[in-house]
C-alpha cells in the first residue's frame, strides 16, 4: 500500500499582497510528499501557513510558486477545466462544520453534489450512493431531507466527511477538522477518520495544532513555523524526541493530566515575528536559545540528521547529541495520556 507517492509538493510559495508593495509571506518554500494510504500531519501554530498550504494544494488559492504533483500530474499550473476533472480525487474537510454546509440545502443534496458533478449516474443510483456514504459516517437515510442546522456539530462534521468521501477520493485535506468540536465529539470524529482511512485506503493531509489528534490519526508529522517546514519525521519518533528547537517548544507545550509531573518545558523567548518582514536567516533566530551568528545569515536546509528525520537547523545535530548524553531521553512523550 505504501511507497508510492500520491502527492509531491516542491518549494511551494504563497505570498499575499499586503498593500504598499509589501507581501505577507504565508508560505515560503515548502516541500513534502504524501504516500498512498498515508496520513501526514501538518502542525504549527496559527499563522504558520499550514492552512494556506492545504488550500494551495487544492488550488482554492493560487500558489505564487512551486510545483504540486498529484497522481503524476502538475496541479499547480493546470487550467481550471482539467483541474475540475481531477477534483473528485482530492477533497477537503473544513474546520467549521456548520459554515461548510450550505444552510439552505438539505443534507441529501449537499452530499449528492460532488457525485452529480463527477460521474454520469442516474438519480436513483446517486441516491443509493448518498445513503451508502451517509451510512459510512454513521448517519442514515433519515438525514436526507434535514437541513444542516438541525444537526449537532459532530453530526455536521460527519456530513462534511460524507461529502468529502462521496466521490471515492484518494487524498483528503483535513483542515483542523476537530478544533471547532467539543472534546467528547472530537474522539468520535477522529475514530471515524481513522476507520475510513483503513477502509478506503485514503491519504490524509491533516492540518492541525491539536497534537493529541495528530498522534491518534497520523503516521508522519511535518512541523511548520512561519511558512517553512522545520522538521519532519514519523509521529512516534517525533513525539518521543523532537530535534528542532521549535518542535521541542511546541511539543512540550502540551498539557499533562498529572499536575505533579515536573515538566522539562522548552520555552522560546519573544514573540513570533511578522510574516511581512521575515528575518533573513532562520525564522526562529532571536527566539532560539541555540542560536549562533550563522543562524541569522542564511536559512538552514532540511537535512536528514537521523534516519527518516529531516530537520532544518544548523545546530540540531550538535545540540541534540549533547542533550541525549546529558539527560537521556527520560521525558515522557507529550500527548500520551
Amino acid at each position, binding site marked *: 500500500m505504501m511507497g508510492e507517492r500520491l502527492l509531491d509538493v516542491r518549494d511551494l510559495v504563497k505570498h499575499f499582497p499586503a498593500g504598499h508593495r509589501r507581501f505577507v509571506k504565508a508560505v515560503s518554500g515548502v516541500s513534502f510528499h504524501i504516500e498512498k494510504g498515508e496520513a501526514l500531519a501538518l502542525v504549527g501554530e496559527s499563522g504558520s501557513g499550514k492552512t494556506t498550504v492545504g488550500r494551495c494544494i487544492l488550488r*482554492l488559492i493560487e500558489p505564487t510558486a512551486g510545483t504540486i504533483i498529484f497522481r503524476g500530474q502538475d496541479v499547480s499550473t493546470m487550467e481550471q477545466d482539467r483541474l475540475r476533472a481531477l*477534483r473528485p480525487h482530492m*477533497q477537503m474537510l*473544513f474546520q467549521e462544520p456548520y*459554515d*461548510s454546509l450550505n*444552510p439552505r*440545502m438539505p443534507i441529501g443534496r449537499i452530499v449528492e453534489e460532488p457525485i452529480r458533478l*463527477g460521474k454520469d449516474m442516474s438519480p436513483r443510483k446517486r441516491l443509493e450512493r448518498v445513503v451508502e456514504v451517509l451510512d459510512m459516517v454513521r448517519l442514515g437515510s433519515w438525514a436526507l431531507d434535514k437541513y444542516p442546522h438541525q444537526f449537532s456539530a459532530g453530526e455536521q462534521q460527519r456530513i462534511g466527511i460524507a461529502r468529502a468521501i462521496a466521490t471515492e477520493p484518494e487524498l483528503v485535506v483535513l483542515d483542523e477538522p476537530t478544533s471547532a468540536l467539543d472534546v467528547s465529539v472530537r474522539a468520535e470524529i477522529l475514530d471515524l477518520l481513522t476507520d475510513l482511512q483503513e477502509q478506503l485506503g485514503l491519504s490524509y493531509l491533516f492540518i492541525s495544532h491539536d497534537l493529541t489528534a495528530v498522534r491518534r490519526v497520523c503516521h508522519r508529522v511535518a512541523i511548520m513555523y512561519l511558512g517553512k517546514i522545520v522538521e519532519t519525521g514519523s509521529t512516534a519518533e517525533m513525539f518521543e524526541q523532537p530535534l528542532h528547537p521549535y518542535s521541542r517548544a511546541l511539543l512540550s507545550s502540551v498539557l499533562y493530566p498529572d499536575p505533579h509531573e515536573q515538566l522539562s518545558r522548552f520555552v522560546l523567548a519573544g514573540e513570533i515575528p511578522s510574516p511581512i518582514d521575515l528575518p533573513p536567516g532562520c525564522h526562529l533566530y532571536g527566539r532560539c536559545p541555540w542560536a549562533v551568528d550563522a543562524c541569522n545569515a542564511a536559512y538552514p536546509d532540511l537535512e536528514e540528521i537521523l534516519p527518516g528525520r529531516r530537520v532544518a537547523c544548523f545546530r540540531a545535530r550538535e545540540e541534540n547529541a549533547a542533550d541525549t548524553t546529558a539527560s537521556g531521553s527520560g521525558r515522557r512523550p507529550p500527548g500520551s495520556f
Partner: protein
Amino acid sequence: MTLTPPTRRRLRNFRANRRGFWSLWIFLALFVVSLCAEVIANDRPLLVRYAGAFYLPVLREYPETAFGGIFPTEANYRDPQVISLITQKGWIIWPPIPYRYDTINYNLPVPAPAPPSTTNWLGTDDQGRDLLARLIYGFRISVLFGLTLTLLSSVIGVIAGAVQGYFGGWTDLIFQRSIEMWSGLPELYLLIILASLVEPTFWWLLGLMLLFSWMSLVAVVRAEFLRARNFDYVRAARALGVGNAEIIFRHVLPNAMVATLTFLPFILNGSITTLTSLDFLGFGLPPGSPSLGEILAQGKANLQAPWLGITGFLVLAVMLSLLVFVGEAVRDAFDPRKTS
C-alpha cells in the same frame, strides 16, 4: 411545500407587523380590482339581452345591425339610439362605472372639468373623461409598469452584482468604476431628451428607465457576494469542482436573496414615482393614456377644479404609503436580530 424554519420565522415576523401586513392585503386588493378594470369601468355593457339571446360586449365586438340598427360597424352602446333599440327587446347590465379611461362624456351639464356628480362620481378631467375610470386604469398601469421595471432591474442588478462580488479583484474594480460613471449621468434629463427623440410607448419607456434603474440593487448584491465568497460552503463547493455559474446561482444567490428582497418594495416605489414624474412633465406614456402623473398635471393646470389635484394626490400618497409599509414589514421580517 414545506417551509424551512427561518422562512416560517420570517412569515411570523411579517404578520406581527400589523400595519405592513394589512397594507399588503389592501394593496393586493386594490391591484386585483384594478386588474379587472375592464369590467368595472367600461363604456360597453357587461351583458346584453336582446331578442332572446345574450351578448357580452365587454369581450366581443358586435355590429350595430345585430341589435336591429343600420350601421354594420361596431355598436356604440352609449348612443341613446342603440340603447333604445336594445331595451325594446331586452335589457342591458352596465359596469358600475359606465366609462372607460378614454370615454368622453358629451352630456356634461357644465364645461369640463366637471365637478363630482352622480354620473361622474369623482368628476371629470378637462377633456370630459371620467376621473374615477382614469384613476383605476392609471393605477393599474403604474403598478404594472413599476412591477415590470422592478423585476427586470432586479434580474439585471442581481446578475451584475453577483458577477462583481463573486469574482472580485479587477472585475469588481472595473465594473464598479463603470457603474460610478454611468450613475453620474443626469438620469432625468437623459430620459427627457431620449423621450423627445422617440414617441414613448410603455415598453420604450420601460427600456429607457431600465438603463438606469438596474444599478439600485448592484451594491447590495455585490456586498453579499463579496462576503459569501469567503464562506466555507462556497469554498467547499469550489473544492468539489462545482462550476462558477452553479456556485453563484445554487449556493450564493439563495443566501443573498434575503438582502435583495427587502429592497424590492422600495424599488417598486421608486419606479412608480419616476414614471409619475415623467408623466407629470409630459414626457411619459403617450398622450391619452391614463396615468397618475397626467392627472396631477391636469390638477396643476386646473386649479379651479381641485378634485383633480386632490384625488390624484390622495391615490398616489395612499399607494406609495402602502408600499412603504409593506417594505418596512418585509425588512423587519428578514431582520436576523429579530429571532422570535
